[in-house]
């Protein structure tokens, strides 16, 4: 694997890390224990076996010596009288001749170092292979009868015992490691559970349930995090309420004088004919900017409420086609730009009618003001989703600005000269978001103009009170 590939390997999670360390720790400890046990047991068993082999060899050797001391006895006769255990064989050298208690055994089975040691008049014990089995060879010099005695004994049983021990210890080491992993998993869950609670509470708060708090705990290790989490949420809650109050205060402070202005200017407009040209022009200027001011204030307050999550939506299941029709009606657009699904059935969405109406009006006005005129509004139903697409025939939006165009007071360099409030599209984005939907900008069909698409989750069932109205 390349180094570049390694960079993308994600770090294991806390739960995995804890489980793994328990498993590895368990494995290391149990392997060390097993290895120690195995080595100790093996040394002990080998010592035992060697002691046994020596005992047997000396006993058999003395019998052979005694036999040979009897006058006239041949080695073969003596060997016939010696009865070594079934897994052992006796080999005797007298002069240059070799005698054996078994036909399959002979000179070739006696290792050289044993012969050398016995040749030097000392007893020897060595390990050797005999018919492919491990065997212990004991050599005893018999100087009194001018002979050398060798006894071979296979240690197959010892090997089987040690093998069985190794298997048992390996299995137990594995089981111990596995149990440690399970323990680690349980422990990690104990550690993670409070974090899961915190994550769940945080998600609920993020989705607007600001009253969510972590339940009090008597666990001293958790009390700190619970207390600081709850006080953090309290602080956020206070902050949001302060912001909402501020928005309400600003709203009251600005709306009253604005009402006076709007009402008075309307009165002036009704009496325009009584004015001379210059005051008439002044009234026109005031009227235009007052309308813009009014729109900006409404947009700003709506945006503030949406962003603070304080907007009180009255959600109703309505027909998206009707929403779009109303938006076209309000903005004085022709209904012929509307493209609807061909089946002619209602397209239900669950929305706050007024909020979505304002968002659609903003999109239509944006197309009209900055996009060289509205060319089409399309309502389409996809599985689980409803999309409303507004297309214009303007210069389009450069790809680099398609995200930023939804920010407050963003003004694209190429988006026409007519002033808007600079808030319309961000209001659209916030409204879509607050309804669990989204909005994005792309280029129009054939690369001409811009396209704004609002996507909303489809509602189930028919629009409310359809049949009775």
């Amino acid at each position: 694997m390349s180094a570049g590939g390694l960079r993308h390997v994600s770090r294991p999670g806390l739960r995995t890390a804890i489980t793994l360390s328990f498993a590895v720790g368990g494995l290391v400890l149990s392997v060390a224990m097993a290895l120690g046990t195995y080595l100790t047991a093996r040394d002990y068993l080998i010592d035992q076996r060697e002691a046994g082999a020596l005992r047997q060899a000396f006993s058999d050797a003395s019998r052979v010596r005694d036999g040979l001391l009897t006058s006239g006895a041949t080695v073969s006769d003596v060997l016939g009288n010696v009865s070594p255990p079934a897994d052992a064989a006796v080999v005797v050298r007298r002069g240059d001749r070799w005698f054996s208690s078994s036909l399959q055994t002979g000179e070739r089975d006696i290792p050289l170092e044993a012969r050398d040691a016995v040749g030097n008049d000392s007893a020897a014990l060595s390990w050797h292979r005999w018919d492919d089995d491990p065997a212990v060879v004991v050599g005893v010099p018999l100087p009194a009868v001018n002979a050398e005695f060798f006894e071979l004994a296979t240690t197959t049983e010892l090997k089987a015992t040690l093998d069985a021990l190794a298997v048992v210890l390996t299995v137990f080491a594995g089981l111990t490691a596995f149990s440690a992993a399970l323990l680690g998993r349980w422990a990690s869950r104990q550690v993670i559970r409070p974090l899961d609670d915190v994550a769940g509470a945080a998600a609920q708060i993020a989705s607007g349930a600001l009253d969510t708090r972590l339940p009090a705990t008597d666990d001293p290790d958790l009390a700190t995090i619970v207390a600081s989490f709850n006080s953090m949420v309290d602080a956020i809650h206070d902050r949001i309420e302060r912001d909402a109050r501020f928005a309400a205060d600003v709203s009251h402070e600005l709306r009253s004088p604005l009402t006076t202005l709007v009402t008075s200017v309307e009165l002036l407009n009704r009496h325009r004919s009584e004015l001379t040209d210059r005051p008439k022009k002044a009234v026109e200027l005031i009227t235009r900017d007052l309308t813009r001011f009014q729109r900006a204030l409404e947009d700003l307050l709506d945006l503030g409420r949406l962003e603070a999550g304080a907007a009180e939506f009255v959600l109703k299941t309505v027909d998206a086609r009707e929403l779009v029709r109303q938006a076209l009606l309000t903005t004085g657009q022709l209904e012929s730009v509307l493209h609807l699904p061909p089946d002619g059935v209602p397209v239900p969405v669950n929305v706050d009618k007024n909020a979505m109406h304002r968002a659609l009006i903003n999109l239509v006005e944006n197309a009209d003001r900055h996009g060289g005129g509205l060319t089409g509004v399309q309502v389409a139903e996809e599985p689980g989703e409803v999309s409303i697409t507004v297309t214009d025939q303007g210069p389009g939006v450069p790809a680099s600005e398609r995200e930023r165009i939804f920010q407050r007071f963003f003004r694209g360099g190429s988006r026409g000269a007519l002033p808007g409030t600079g808030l319309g599209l961000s209001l659209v984005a916030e409204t879509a978001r607050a309804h669990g939907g989204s909005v994005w900008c792309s280029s129009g069909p054939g690369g001409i103009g811009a396209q704004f698409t609002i996507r909303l989750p489809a509602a189930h069932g028919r629009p409310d009170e359809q049949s009775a109205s």
Partner: protein
Amino acid sequence: MTHLLILEDDEGIRSSLTMALEDEGYQVSAAAKADPALAIVAEQRVDLMLVDLMLGGMDGFTFIRRVRPSSDAPIIVVSARADTEDIVAALEAGADDYVTKPFVIKELTARLRALLRRGTGDGDPSTEPAGADQLVLDSTDPALVLDMGAGMVRRGGEEVHLTVTEYRLLCELASPPGRVRSRGLLLESVWDRGYFGDERIVDVHIRRLRTKVEIDASDPQTIVTVRGLGYRLDQR
């Protein structure tokens, strides 16, 4: 001449609104506080009231509750806030409709005209049930009778006091009885509000109407809710 009362503590709004409505041909009395406004209602015939909710001293809610027993004239609440609780509270107190600041005069006069329709004899013929002048809504004793000729509702011969809007809502439901009306339809025919009207206006009025015409408002038998569809008036 239709007489309007404006209760508004903001000098600018009060003056400009008075001028604009006089310009529209209404006779306008204006007050900055609730007490002089109550005095005007007590002394003169008032056809419709425009009430600001945020007032110094007695607030708009209290004014509405105080003025309601003696006057059945429509009340339009003028609220600076779009706060839904304030609006619902004002409707519960007895208001008929609302506009939020800043509004344009055209919007306000549309609301005025809708609520004044019957008051100026400009009744919508479709709200008059065909044929009968009197309609027995509930024949259990004491009987509830809608007397279209006299323009009133009686239970056991005694008049049940309804506001102008409550009476029009009842007539709408009773022409003919037994048919389900959606909230949107009622909003359109009684309040002249279109697609974006606030349907809570209907719900609050239905609630108020029930406390007056039902024997047990918590278990309505005459004006019943049809889930997901709207309301229906059942004759018994």
